[in-house]
């Protein structure tokens, strides 16, 4: 799909996050949902969940002894336990988005043959049947769109991502815009001003700000929508071949309807969700790329049902049948349907459907029937906006806005009360006052009637309301707009930062969320995925243990190896990537006299080549990089496409040793063994799932021997090996020690085994397998049972070690983050040993760390381990009561550990209670199993205490949802900001849960990126993102907020003092236009530029002293204290602003407009000078903005004062001639800013902040450099 298509090209479309809980249908793989049908209320659902949870925990206790079964349960029960755990602390909405993860993990997995799952499966069977026989099911009559859609209930294939049409734009856009409270406030103020007794401003003037904001937003929305319209149009007008009167004719996409039969050719995009009827492959196989849907770049296989493939050919498609399928839903990993064709009824599943947006690859053509079209396709249903996050600082800002509202209320109350008192005192004079009249006094029809007088209480009330109008900008509404613009600008500079550009993948930094730029400066916890995030996710086959011998310690490039060359010379094709081989292993394979060993080695590589789902793609060796061996003439290139990079690495490795996977269809594979092509029939394939943690393939050799080849994780493999002789045991031990060695080197390990099948076994398995694979329901568990039949008594062949290379700069980045006071937690699905070794290699763990390992297999064990660790290392509990005790423990510990005692001598000055109370750096390593017990039970707080006192936390073998659970553990128990970084679909839940989610554009597709707030190419950019941009953004926005509060408050207070002097009439000396322009035009531009461009420190300094980052999470740029100090300063400045001219022009003939003009100019110059005083980095544009604002103000004054019909006509010209005017302004500026300046200077000299010192150092360095260069220049 090209990028101009709307499906995922719009920024606000999110990845196909599957909202599990929305699903209407039940499914065989979800555990807790099956009982709830679409009509079940939430209440019901909760009940069911609770039941499940208790059941699970009971079950867990019964299974304490069996490590494997409980580990396989981890994933299975996790969703439940998580759900139950987190439910009270979070809204449902958030939880829903977790669903994606569950699904991804579980879609291939399923419950094992255990009690709880069986119970649920039983239910699901009923449910499955029920929904399909329900009236609720959708009926598709193949090739009969009219009958299909006789009730006109299905949508056509036209898609609309645009929000508005030409007609609905105005009302709808306005409606959406007024969802913002700020706009409602604007509207309310404008409405108040339209009431006759309250008309403080001119009526049109008061509407100006609102209209301005509305127009700007509407134009922006309109433009975006126009672009959407355009891409929709492109999409809707694409063409596909549709069967029309028994002939395939071209039809535009938007006219395609459900029930129509469509033919797609290779590399075309699928126009709608279709059930496959037939493909160019006789066995009904088709390959699709789902990049646009789930971001995974590898090819996936889809099958047409055997029953239909025969009826479909390239030219003819004479087919009629009924498909009964579930209602449209957004779950892209599920499809439940059945089909009636030629009187046979069979079920359809997810592997029979191709979804809109996917691309057909490696298949000449497919024919399918449309089941969901247009808006009802799964791709469209998934394109909802992700939940938006709000920045922490904005939350605090709202708290202070509340304070400002209270001020506003008090001020208005004062005015109202004053008005009331004044009226009471002057009650009798009201009629005769020159400027005040209670009633009409001129004879006439209205004589004696009340003139704009509504009685004292009403007058006071009106006075209250009109003061609200006058003081409206006390609530800095414009701040929200300013902040949006500032963040936009900041994002621009982050995106443009070439230091965060990943040249290798060509991916630049992306800001996907514009709301949380400043949160980047306050991160306290970083949760990182390992694979693909810390590591490159480029797997490389490094070590092999074959028949108990260890190979691969010395590797040579394939071409250098003499043993390998003769093999290579025989080839007529080349791999896309070269790998190095171990000559020793090579010679074992080809020249070893020991037959036994050779056979094992042979079978080992055969398994590597055969037991996988990798698809070899042959291309002509035209392009460079492939045509290296020209001497051999025609060269073909083989590129392996597969779902897992591990498998690709293994297949490539097998190829390097002479076992090249050459061809794979659903029925057979062709392996090129040292130049001889071996065709093997594939009798069955049990795909890898996370419950079994292994995959197996049953193949028939040309000599009719049948073997099952298995590879899998060591934990799941050793238990199903044959218990054999002594030699076998020694082999087992040797392999196990090799495995430990590999994983300690940070390698990913797999165990390879095989066994021959006897005819009887084969027969039994075949019948079970056939039955299972055609089963209508519960297919996954039946398949698993079938797999269990043959995956036993295996002969160990060997083990492999695959290296997952660390990304560039990861150790340095982690070191910097740690220095910055950020706690880096690594959450990985890897084994404990692998995780620890990666931890060591990326400097997360160091040798002097005390490692606490929690890997209990039961609740008690975990509890004990936790308790022991807490007691041993004297972890301070979060409750204050234990403090004394713990201090004592610290002291004791300090005596023992003298070498480190110096470090503990000073307690942290800031942030007490959050720092470690222990002396040795601790590292907590906890595995997913234990997490299940801990997070489910009351041990959570203990884990939290322990984890937060550890310097490093490594969680291994965690399921995706557990990742989110751990993030939530921190989020719910501390105020600290969390950041999650990951690259894979399994990190989505974590990324969405954390305050800031960062996606790595890596190998594992774009799902993480789509769910993230920020995306980048490499982990190491995180250092720059946080330390530099985070710091800048936080300080800028923090200052921006305070300054905006100040800017508006100083203006409002000035008006307030004036009103106190004018008998509480809500009169403003300023003209309407000045009041309106003040925050819109006169003072807004500089704040925006400062918010985008100001830099307190250069990026060099920030990277040099990572600890400067700590100012962020210590909230030094924005806190309550600063707010109050600012407010006190504001009061002082407003007093000066008001009283200096008052005293100067006391007893003078100054008129109200001159005074107003003076005040306007003075306040504008004052706030701009205030800003100028705080700017750290002056750029030409900042100068333009700040001084330009003042000039603009003067310009506006001159223009406004040149219009004769305004009462303020010619005022500014008169004032400008008077020296007193200028002297007064100078006085105001200096006196108002003097206290602030003095305080700032005194602080800088006596209590310099870290930033201040660093800035001075920077200045010194620059001066030094300049002096030196001048010195050199002169000499």
């Amino acid at each position, binding site marked *: 799909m090209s990028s101009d298509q709307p499906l995922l090209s719009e920024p606000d479309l999110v990845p196909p996050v599957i909202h599990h809980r929305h699903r209407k249908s039940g499914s065989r793989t979800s555990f807790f949902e099956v009982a709830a049908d679409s009509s079940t209320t939430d209440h019901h659902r909760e009940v069911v969940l609770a039941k499940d949870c208790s059941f699970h925990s009971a079950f867990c206790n019964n299974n304490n002894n069996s490590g494997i079964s409980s580990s396989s349960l981890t994933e299975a029960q996790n969703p439940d336990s998580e759900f139950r755990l987190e439910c009270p602390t979070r809204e449902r909405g958030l939880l829903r988005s977790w669903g994606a993860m569950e699904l991804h993990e579980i879609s291939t997995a399923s419950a094992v043959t255990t009690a709880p799952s069986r119970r649920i499966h039983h239910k699901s069977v009923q449910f499955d049947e029920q929904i399909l026989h329900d009236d609720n099911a959708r009926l598709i009559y193949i090739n009969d769109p009219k009958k299909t859609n006789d009730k006109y209930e299905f949508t056509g294939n036209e898609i609309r991502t645009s929000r508005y049409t030409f007609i609905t734009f105005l009302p709808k856009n306005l409606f959406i815009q007024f969802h913002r409270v700020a706009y409602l406030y604007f509207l309310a103020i404008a409405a108040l001003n339209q009431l006759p007794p309250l008309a403080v401003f001119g009526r049109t003037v008061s509407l100006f700000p609102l209209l301005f904001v509305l127009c700007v937003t509407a134009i922006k929305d309109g433009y975006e929508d126009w672009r959407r319209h355009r891409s929709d149009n492109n999409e809707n007008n694409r063409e596909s071949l549709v069967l029309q009167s028994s002939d395939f004719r071209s039809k535009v996409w938007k006219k395609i309807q459900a029930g129509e039969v469509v033919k797609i050719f290779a590399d075309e995009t699928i126009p709608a969700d279709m059930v496959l009827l037939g493909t160019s492959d006789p066995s009904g196989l088709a390959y699709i790329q789902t990049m646009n849907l789930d971001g995974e770049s590898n090819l996936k296989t889809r099958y047409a049902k055997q029953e239909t493939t025969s009826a479909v050919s390239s030219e003819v498609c004479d087919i009629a049948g009924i498909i009964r399928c579930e209602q449209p839903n957004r779950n892209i990993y599920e499809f439940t349907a059945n089909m009636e064709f030629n009187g046979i009824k069979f079920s359809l599943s997810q592997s029979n459907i191709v979804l809109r947006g996917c691309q057909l690859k490696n298949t000449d053509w497919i024919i399918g029937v449309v089941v969901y079209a247009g808006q009802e396709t799964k791709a469209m249903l998934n394109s909802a906006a992700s939940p938006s996050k709000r920045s922490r600082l904005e939350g605090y800002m709202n708290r202070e806005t509340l304070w400002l509202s209270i001020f506003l209320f008090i001020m208005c109350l004062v005015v109202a009360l004053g008005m009331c008192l004044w009226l009471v005192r002057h009650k009798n*004079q009201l009629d*005769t*006052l*020159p*400027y*005040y*009249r209670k009633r009409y*006094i*001129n*004879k*006439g029809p209205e004589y004696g009637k009340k*003139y704009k007088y509504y009685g004292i209480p009403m007058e006071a009330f009106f006075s209250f309301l009109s003061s609200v109008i006058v003081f409206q900008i006390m609530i800095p509404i414009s701040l929200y707009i300013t902040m949006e613009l500032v963040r936009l600008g900041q994002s621009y500079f982050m995106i443009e930062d070439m230091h965060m550009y990943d040249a290798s993948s060509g991916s630049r930094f992306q800001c996907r969320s514009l709301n949380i730029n400043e949160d980047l400066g306050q991160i306290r916890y970083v949760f990182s995925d390992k694979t693909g995030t810390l590591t490159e996710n480029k797997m490389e086959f490094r070590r092999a243990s074959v028949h108990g011998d260890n190979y691969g310690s010395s590797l040579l490039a394939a071409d250098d190896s003499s043993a390998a060359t003769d093999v290579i010379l025989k080839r007529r094709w080349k791999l896309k990537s070269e790998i190095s081989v171990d000559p020793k292993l090579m010679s074992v394979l080809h020249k070893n006299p020991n037959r036994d060993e050779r056979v094992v080695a042979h079978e080992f590589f055969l398994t590597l080549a055969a037991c996988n789902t990798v698809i070899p793609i042959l291309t002509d060796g035209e392009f460079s990089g492939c045509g290296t061996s020209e001497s051999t003439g025609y060269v073909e290139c083989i590129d392996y496409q597969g779902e897992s990079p591990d498998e690709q690495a293994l297949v490539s490795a097998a190829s390097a040793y002479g076992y090249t996977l050459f061809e794979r269809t659903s029925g057979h594979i062709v392996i090129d063994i040292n130049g001889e092509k071996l065709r093997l029939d594939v009798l069955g394939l049990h795909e890898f799932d996370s419950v079994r943690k292994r995959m197996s393939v049953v193949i028939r050799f040309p000599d009719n021997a049948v073997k099952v080849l298995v590879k899998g994780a060591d934990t799941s493999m050793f238990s199903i090996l044959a218990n054999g002789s002594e030699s076998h045991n020694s082999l087992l031990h040797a392999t196990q020690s090799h495995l430990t060695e590999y994983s300690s080197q940070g390698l990913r390990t797999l165990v390879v085994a095989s066994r021959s099948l006897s005819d009887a076994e084969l027969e039994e398995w075949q019948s079970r397998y056939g039955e299972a694979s055609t089963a209508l329901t519960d297919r996954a568990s039946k398949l698993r049972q079938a797999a269990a039949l043959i995956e036993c008594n295996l002969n160990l062949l060997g083990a492999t070690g695959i290296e997952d290379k660390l990304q560039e700069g990861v150790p340095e980045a982690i070191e910097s983050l740690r*220095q910055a006071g950020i706690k880096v937690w690594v959450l990985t699905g890897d084994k404990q040993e692998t995780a620890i070794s990666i931890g060591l290699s990326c400097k997360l763990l160091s040798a002097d760390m005390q490692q606490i390992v929690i890997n209990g297999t039961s609740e008690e064990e975990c509890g004990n381990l936790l308790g022991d660790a807490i007691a041993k290392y004297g972890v301070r509990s979060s409750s204050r009561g234990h403090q004394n005790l713990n201090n004592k423990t610290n002291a004791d510990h300090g005596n023992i550990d003298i070498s480190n005692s110096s*470090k*503990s001598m000073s307690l942290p000055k800031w942030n007490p209670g959050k*720092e470690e109370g222990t002396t040795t750096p601790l590292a907590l390593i906890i595995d997913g199993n234990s997490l299940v017990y801990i997070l489910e039970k009351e041990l959570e707080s203990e884990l939290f205490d322990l984890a937060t006192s550890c*310097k490093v936390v490594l969680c291994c073998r965690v399921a995706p949802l557990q990742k989110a659970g751990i993030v939530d553990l921190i989020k719910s128990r501390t105020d600290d900001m969390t950041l999650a970084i990951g690259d894979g679909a399994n990190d989505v839940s974590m990324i969405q849960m954390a305050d800031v989610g960062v996606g790595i554009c890596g190998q594992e597709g774009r799902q993480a990126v789509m769910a993230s707030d920020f995306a980048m190419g490499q982990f190491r950019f995180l250092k720059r993102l946080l330390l530099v941009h985070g710091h800048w953004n936080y300080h800028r926005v923090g200052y921006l907020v305070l300054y905006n509060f100040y800017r508006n408050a100083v203006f409002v207070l000035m008006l307030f003092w004036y009103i106190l*002097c*004018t*008998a509480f*009439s809500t*009169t403003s000396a300023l003209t309407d236009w000045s009041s309106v322009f003040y925050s819109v035009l006169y003072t807004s531009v500089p704040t925006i530029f400062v918010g985008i461009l100001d830099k307190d420190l250069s990026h060099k300094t920030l990277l*040099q002293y990572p600890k400067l980052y700590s100012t962020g999470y210590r909230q030094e740029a924005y806190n309550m204290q600063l707010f109050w100090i600012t407010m006190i300063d504001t009061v002082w400045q407003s007093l000066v602003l008001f009283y*200096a001219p008052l*005293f100067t*022009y*006391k*007893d*003078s*003939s*100054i*008129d*109200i*407009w001159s*005074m107003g003009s003076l005040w306007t100019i003075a306040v504008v110059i004052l706030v701009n000078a205030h800003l100028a005083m705080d700017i750290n980095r002056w750029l030409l544009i900042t100068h333009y903005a700040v001084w330009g604002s003042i000039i603009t103000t003067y310009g506006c004054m001159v223009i406004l004062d040149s219009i*004769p*019909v305004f*009462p303020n*006509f*010619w005022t500014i010209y*008169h004032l400008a001639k*008077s*020296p007193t005017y200028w*002297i007064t302004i*100078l*006085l105001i500026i*200096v*006196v108002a800013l*003097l206290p602030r300046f003095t305080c700032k*200077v005194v602080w*800088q*000299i006596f209590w310099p902040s*870290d930033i201040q*010192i*660093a800035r*001075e150092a*920077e*200045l*010194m*360095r620059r001066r030094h450099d300049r002096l030196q260069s001048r010195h050199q220049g002169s000499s």
Partner: protein
Amino acid sequence: MMDMSPVGGKEGQSPPNSKKTSKKPKCMYVISTFTVIGIIFIPVGLASLFSSEKVEEAVFRYDDTCLPSSNADNAVAYIKSATTNKTCTHKWTSRNDKQLWNKASEGDTSNCNPEDKTKGNAPIVPCGLIAWSLFNDTYKFSMNNKDLTVNKKNIAWSSDRGSKFGPDVYPKNFQSGELIGGGKLDESIPLSEQEDLIVWMRTAALPTFRKLYGKIEADLEANSEIDIVIQNNYNTYEFGGKKNLVLSTTTWIGGKNPFLGMAYLVVGGLSLFCAIGFILLYVIKPRPLGDPSYLSWNRNPGILK
């Protein structure tokens, strides 16, 4: 004791901050800022104060019929009438500037309620409460039994006369209602020449204000006695306002007001004081600038482990 090694290591790379160069910039900049403020403010303050002192001013309240004799300098005296406690600028918007500007808009009396139209629905020009409450006390000055001519020309802003008040707009139906607010206008003179009205229509900013009445262009000797005949027309008794007659000279600074001068002197003095304070500080207890050893984590090692 100080364990700077784990993090302090990098600080060594920053150029060694020799104390002789390092402490200068910040302090110098602070001291010079204060000094410059002091140097500018004190002379300006002195000048303002001096000119303000030069202004001769005689104020007498006449609404309580007590009229003391006055002294006047030999300069052009500005006569200002001052009204205090005027009940504010309440509803100062009760006017229509368009009507004053253009004859065509004569009938435009929006905003002027209740002084917008007569009973017969004819528009009042100038309409509105501000015009209606036109000040109309008059003063006659004589010295040694010789009348002093009071120049009542050019007392309003030339811009107001020239452009704001229309030369073709004549007063109409003014003060024709039951309640007379203040002065009447000669209906044969266009608004642009009704300078008293123009002055009055420049609404005062503050409750206590002065309005220019006229200028005595003859030189007045010191200690000379001026007899004033006041026609007390304008009713301030009703709202407890006070009326003063002010005879005053004027300088570049305006009227007599020592505030500006004093303020400038105080601020200038304070600034110089601060400058001296910072100089002393710089001498006694200098803090080397940009010294990494002052960084919080170096002062308190172990804060971040």
